């Protein structure tokens, strides 16, 4: 990749195409890095919403493809991760719309697989998967993926106030869950 050298003459020499090419490569590299590092987190979020392993895998693949094809529209590179998660949430919701939820047979095989040696954590995730959709999303994004309230608001296209309110209601349920498992003394 050609780069400008920082001097005015150096900058003058660098063509617009060089700069654009550099940005393309930067975007590409970041995209691949973020997806690689977050593929498990993406699966966890998609699974929490569609509650079926194969469907979650399909949704993630679709989201990755869609995000990549719209990468040029990303205005702020530092928001790439939350932008990818936003697309994932939208894809999951679109998928749920298509699927008749009444016919859903909950895939418990994955949950059963999980418990090995991680009794406490397994229970927490299982509990989260059973929460209502609105709580599940914010709990996964806040506690598991450690997004900030503002970022969650962007991802879910809701206000920060709504995120805080849902978190606060979810927190009550999580507290009760921890107490019932002797994991919490207030």
């Amino acid at each position, binding site marked *: 990749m050609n780069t*400008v050298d920082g001097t005015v003459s150096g900058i003058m020499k660098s063509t617009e195409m060089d700069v654009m090419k550099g940005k393309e490569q930067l975007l590409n590299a970041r995209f691949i890095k973020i997806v690689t590092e977050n*593929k498990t987190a993406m699966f966890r979020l998609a699974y929490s919403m569609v509650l079926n392993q194969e469907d979650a895998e399909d949704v993630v693949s679709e989201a990755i493809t869609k995000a990549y094809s719209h990468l040029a529209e990303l205005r702020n590179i530092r928001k790439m991760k939350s932008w990818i998660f936003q697309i994932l949430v939208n894809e999951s919701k679109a998928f749920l719309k298509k699927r008749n939820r009444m016919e859903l047979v909950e895939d418990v095989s994955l949950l059963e697989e999980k418990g090995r040696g*991680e009794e406490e954590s397994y229970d927490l995730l299982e509990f989260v998967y059973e929460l209502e959709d609105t709580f599940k999303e914010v709990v996964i994004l806040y*506690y598991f993926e450690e997004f900030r309230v503002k970022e969650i608001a962007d991802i879910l296209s809701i206000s920060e106030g709504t995120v805080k309110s849902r978190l606060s209601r979810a927190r009550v349920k999580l507290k009760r869950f921890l107490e019932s498992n002797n994991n919490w003394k207030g």
Partner: protein
Amino acid sequence: MNRLDKKIRKMAKQTGCPVSNSYEERVEHLLENMNGENVKLERNNGFSMSKAGFATCVFCAALLVAVPVTAKVNSAVKERMESMSKKERKAYETMNDPKYLTKEHETEAIRYSRELSEDEEKREGELFQKYEEGVLFPEGEIQVVDKLEENMEITSPLYEVWNREFFLPERELTDEELLQMIDLMYKQSYALENSDEVKEYYKALQEFNENPNPGQNDMSEEEAVAKASAYLKIMYDIDTSEMEKTVGFELGGGLVDGGDGDYSVTFEGKDEWLYDVRLNGETGILTSINVSKGEISYNVGHGQPIEVDEQLQNSIYEKTKEKLAALLGEDIKVRNGNCEFSVNEDNKVTDAALYIPLELDNGCVYQFTYIVDEDRFGGVYTYGAEEGADLSDHVSREEDGAICIPMERNKR
């Protein structure tokens, strides 16, 4: 963050999430295919839009996201929308006037006077689906008032145009009432999407994408790079000449007035430090600096809890003011300034970072992050002066349980 949150996050961290080998392979395969071909960028240059125009579009986006009418509309719904008289459509369109746009509306189109109960939220979702499928519409219409009268008793839902808010009775809403609310939102979206203003916006956006040059009043890329380098030298004392640079030009976020948009100049060093400097295309005023190393963002702190006594707070605060004066290249008069941070049970700053917003006499607010454990500045954000706004509009950390110390008031 409280003790319970920490406990849950700790448990979440310990959580494994088994994924199948086929999933891993599938993702890797997808990425391999992408690796060979870079995404093709289009230049987004020279799109001119007023602040009010930008506000309208933020508003449009929020509303259209809330009720996406464009997506394959059911024929019954389409018929219902198109059967609106011109007068009716104009009335709904007027409800979308940006004068009703407040800060809260930037991410949420319409407010509710109270939260919907779990059952109402569930029913609203189901009814919305039925509405979209064209199988269920309300029999009547929700009452719409321009401005709510004082002490008005709310016995059934009504919509206040001025505040863009649904006022709801305390009792549970009926399906018919929820449908009437959905109907209003749907009609508003339809009217908005078909308004001349939005059509003009999309036309202008298209022209903006096709035009490869920044506006006439904007500085050149070379000037923008030089300006961004100078900002980084002042802020972090770094030499950018050996760093990789990429330059973009984007529609401004409306943060600072002037020009057609913002330059985004990104510098990346071999040591993985990345500085993304955004500056106003016309004035060169700094809009933001985002700092990161690898995946770690230095716009927030990541260190271990650390003690920050009053003396250190004062010294960092004064250092921040000096930095701002240097960035602006002039003497500054700070009207208000905070030192914000979160503390743990031991009274230590949890993420080892101080957040310092400074409000100048001209109403502009500059927010700095200071990474205490590394004794360096993190990111910077600028907010242009807004009528009626003050420092408190830019302080959100207090709501998250952070401590906000007013530093200028302390001196008086």
